[in-house]
């Protein structure tokens, strides 16, 4: 019995240590800023590989989610004779919740896992150590651009997701199911508030971006430098990031609704 408690205590201490190490890493990434001239092309490179290359999955998911929302929403709303509320239904669901959350989870799966694997592999093949010995700070060269790349890409991807999903809903609702386009858009406009809904959604996506990228970078940096270690770090990064996003979403939603 005492043994179990001791193990539990040891596990907790390990968790705290991991959190601490990741915290120190984040601190160093945030507060030792990269040199602008040399760091900018690196950053651009990362925005490309994390953001631009994720566009495909984000756009396709966005369209399908928007279309499904419209289809399901229409059939339920029609029972109450409220099918003109389809616009607001889709727009509010997407900009407030689905946009930031789904984008974050997809990003964690596609870009987050790639970043973790990349950094872990660089650690395992001694590339990071080589850089250190060559007096080049791997934090500035490798970790920091990937972190800022994710920070910048996430909100941009979320905006694109939102617009694409709403457009998908428009395609289904107006073009296919025959709702009136004017009613669709004008009801939407009167229910969706720019500051309350859209800006809050973007705020969420920024916070999710920080969380997902931080987790991805930390898991890669602290991965055990073997092939099994990298594999487990990659899966951990996706799982932790997804869970943290969902948890943060609840907290942020509670804060944002309570504000009103």
């Amino acid at each position, binding site marked *: 019995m005492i043994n179990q408690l001791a193990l539990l205590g040891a596990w907790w201490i390990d968790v705290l240590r991991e959190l601490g190490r990741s915290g120190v890493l984040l601190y160093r990434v945030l507060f030792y800023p990269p040199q602008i001239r040399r760091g900018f092309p690196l950053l651009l490179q990362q925005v490309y590989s994390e953001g631009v290359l994720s566009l495909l999955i984000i756009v396709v998911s966005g369209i399908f989610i928007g279309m499904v929302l419209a289809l399901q929403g229409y059939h339920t709303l029609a029972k109450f004779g409220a099918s003109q509320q389809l616009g607001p239904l889709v727009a509010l669901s997407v900009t407030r919740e689905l946009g930031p959350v789904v984008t974050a989870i997809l990003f964690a799966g596609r870009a987050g896992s790639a970043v973790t694997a990349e950094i872990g*592999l*660089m650690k395992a*093949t*001694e*590339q990071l*150590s*080589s850089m*250190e*010995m*060559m*007096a*080049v*700070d791997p934090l500035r060269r490798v970790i920091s651009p990937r972190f800022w790349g994710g920070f910048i890409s996430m909100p941009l991807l979320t905006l694109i997701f939102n617009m694409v999903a709403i457009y998908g809903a428009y395609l289904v609702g107006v073009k296919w199911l025959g709702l009136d386009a004017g009613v669709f858009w004008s009801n939407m406009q009167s229910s969706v508030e720019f500051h309350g809904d859209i800006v809050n959604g973007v705020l969420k996506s920024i916070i999710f971006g920080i969380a997902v990228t931080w987790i991805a970078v930390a898991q890669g940096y602290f991965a055990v430098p073997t092939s099994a270690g990298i594999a487990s770090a990659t899966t951990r990064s996706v799982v932790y990031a997804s869970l943290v996003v969902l948890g943060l979403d609840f907290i942020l939603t509670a804060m944002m609704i309570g504000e009103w």
Partner: protein
Amino acid sequence: MQENLVEISKMSFSHENGRVVFEDVDIIIPRGKVTAIMGPSGTGKTTLLRLIGGQLTPSKGEVRVEGKVIHELSYRKLYQLRKQMGMLFQMGGLFTHLNVFENVAFPLREHTKLSESMIQTLVLMKLQMVGLRGAWPLQPSELSGGMARRVALARAIALDPKLIMYDEPFTGQDPISMGVLVKLIRTLNDALGLTSVIVSHDVQEALSIADYAYVISNKKVVGHGTPDEILHGSSEQLQQFIQGLPDGPVPFDYPANSLTDDFLEGNEV
């Protein structure tokens, strides 16, 4: 200019999990010579290189490089000092996203403001020294293990460092690559006036080019001297290592229960 490039005095080091790697170790790396550090696997030879490079901090004692205590330097001074060191890792450590030319050019681009044409000249020169000038457009994935190590060597000498450290350079090499590397290490050391430290457990090759050697076993230095002195040294640990005896101070049998316990009486394993 100091006689000794690296001085390690009374150094002890243990890992975070408590495992003691070194206890009261004294090592001197004289300038301009090739020094070999040998010992059985797992005695922490790579750890020693990291201690010299300032990546790790000793628990006791000090490590001095060029007269400065390396583990007490600020980041900036540490990085200044590291520019004068080159390190060749066991697996080469080439950057996989850059080709051979860019890999060797990396330290030049990072630390100097030389023009493109100067960088090109220097890179090709370094590659020529290791015999791979024509391989400059290749990707690291297209290189054999031996070639990758030579490119890593070219990269390590790109900034003309004073000290160069080799982590197990002979491990897993075929005889020809071995011969190439041995020749390179010795010639570069003499031609460029480098100080080389070789960490290896390949007694024959290491002693063939070393000017001085240390043998580390069981957390301590068990013997040091010129290759001749080592080969005829007297301690038992030293002799087991040098001659490659399977049993001796480093035992053959991993600690286990007694024979009767495991094999007779149907005891539980």
